[in-house]
């Protein structure tokens, strides 16, 4: 632990925060562009060529906007809540391994900020802190809609966090480690997304609820709650809440890429065939490119789902979380564990029981959802 190491950490952390904030700014542009194209529009194209200066214009506008604090708001918490929301969103990606170790100028550099052996636990714990900021911002505004939004978000995030955590467990079982670097290296032969298709789906659905994105954007359902927990926020405080949401989107996509889609490793046709000269074993820095591509595609998925699906009703949201996702993820863990034991005791090929059996269970779950919805249909007639 010399001073050079501390300086390196400081620089890495600083650069990473800047990258996240820049990523947030351009994610808003990306989302607006993609949504516009889906809706037969063009999207922002006035500020700079193809609207690439739009995020800067938005930021300037928000900086110069008046900041209102409601008269009977809890001033301290009202001020603190956006900060509490932003900080976990930014620090959550500290354990994501962006590349394998790179050697630059004879010095071995790691582009991730922290390499802790309980990386997955760290992600879980930091992700659950984020809910405090939202609840506090809703509560301290002294506004019924904001409070309702905060309450909804706390209930929703607590419910879906269980399924999220359980889908992590299946990955941990397969990798045999909680260290993110080990999890990525364990996907050398095959992505966990292929071995755990249901786990990946549960993860993606639960993350949508976790970052309050459509169709699970109940905390900010504008038709019911004006703007939910950030109704009373304006100016830079609103920008911080907004930023937290989008940075969380980026980080959750980075985590999904790490846990299920091979992290910094190149996708299958590149890493294992004649194209292997492009793999991250040869050029570690290419990991950043692969990460970027994977995050870009996952983010498009989130935007696409937002453009497609209407917001689901609150009771159905809760029912889906507790009665479908939770049992399903428990079943997936059971099947994964059984598959691993069979592979170890009988034959390695039996690991393929995991995806097959979990897909069967997922099919059963889909049938049950369909049945319960149709039963409600009959009851209504």
């Amino acid at each position: 632990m010399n001073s050079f190491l501390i300086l390196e950490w400081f620089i890495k952390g600083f650069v990473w925060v800047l990258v996240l904030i820049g990523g947030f700014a351009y994610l808003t542009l990306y989302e607006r562009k993609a949504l516009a194209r889906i809706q037969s529009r063009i999207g922002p194209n006035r500020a700079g060529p193809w609207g690439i200066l739009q995020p800067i214009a938005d930021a300037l506008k928000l900086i110069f906007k008046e900041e209102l604090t409601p008269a009977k708001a809890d001033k301290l918490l009202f001020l603190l809540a956006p900060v509490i929301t932003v900080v976990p969103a930014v620090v959550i990606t500290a354990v994501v391994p962006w590349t394998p170790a790179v050697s630059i100028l004879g010095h071995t550099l790691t582009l991730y900020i922290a390499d802790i052996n309980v990386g997955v636990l760290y992600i879980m714990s930091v992700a659950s802190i984020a809910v405090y900021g939202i609840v506090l911002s809703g509560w301290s505004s002294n506004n019924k809609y904001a409070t309702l939004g905060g309450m909804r978000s706390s209930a929703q995030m607590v419910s879906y966090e269980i399924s999220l955590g359980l889908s992590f467990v299946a990955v941990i079982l397969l990798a045999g480690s909680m260290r993110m670097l080990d999890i990525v290296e364990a996907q050398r032969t095959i992505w966990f997304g292929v071995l755990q298709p249901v786990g990946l789906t549960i993860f993606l659905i639960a993350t949508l609820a976790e970052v309050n994105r459509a169709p699970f954007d109940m905390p900010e359902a504008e038709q019911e709650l004006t703007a939910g927990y950030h109704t009373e926020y304006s100016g830079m405080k609103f920008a911080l809440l907004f930023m937290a949401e989008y940075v969380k989107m980026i980080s959750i996509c980075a985590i999904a890429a790490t846990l299920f889609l091979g992290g910094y490793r190149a996708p299958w046709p590149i890493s294992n065939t004649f194209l292997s000269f492009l793999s991250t074993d040869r050029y570690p820095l290419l990991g950043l490119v692969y990460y970027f591509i994977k995050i870009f595609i996952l983010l498009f998925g989130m935007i696409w789902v937002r453009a497609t699906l209407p917001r689901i009703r609150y009771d159905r949201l809760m029912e889906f979380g507790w009665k479908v996702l939770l049992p399903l993820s428990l079943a997936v863990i059971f099947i994964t564990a059984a598959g691993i034991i069979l592979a170890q005791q009988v034959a390695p090929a039996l690991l393929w029981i995991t995806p097959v059996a979990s897909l069967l269970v997922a099919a059963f779950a889909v049938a049950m959802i369909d049945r319960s919805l149709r039963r409600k249909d009959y009851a209504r007639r």
Partner: protein
Amino acid sequence: MRVVEPIVELARGLWTTLHMMVEKPVTIQYPEAKKPVKPRFRGRHALKRYDNGLEKCIGCSLCAAACPADAIFVESSENTDDQRYSPGERYASTYEINMLRCIFCGFCEDACPTEAIVLEDNYELTFTDRRQAIYPKAMLIDPVPEGGQPTPQKTEPGIFTRSVPEMKDPQD
């Protein structure tokens, strides 16, 4: 047990939105590209001229009388052969339309005996002041056509005695 149908329905919804991405956007880049208006569109008024440059408007105030919103104000003066603005006895020395009152019904167009006032296709009527909403004659009147003389013109006596020209069948 329906397993495939719910998933297919979900996928169909997602496919619909994804398919929209490859379609051409319907956006028109407005200030740079303008959509042409329909032939009978009623936009800002224009006061027309004859080919020789004389104004068609004879200051009869029929448009002002026909206007349901009372948006038009006309004041007429006498033509002389030395200072001729329009054929016949009189011309509109003041012609103002209040664009805040105008409802673009086109009744003035119908009332005009000389087809002097026409609602054209300009719809970009913006102003920052109530006083700017009153369009005077100078803003409404068309430029002098090629080969014509600007008004007032000096004319031979006895030529322009008739205020309302012989009309052919009105077109459009």
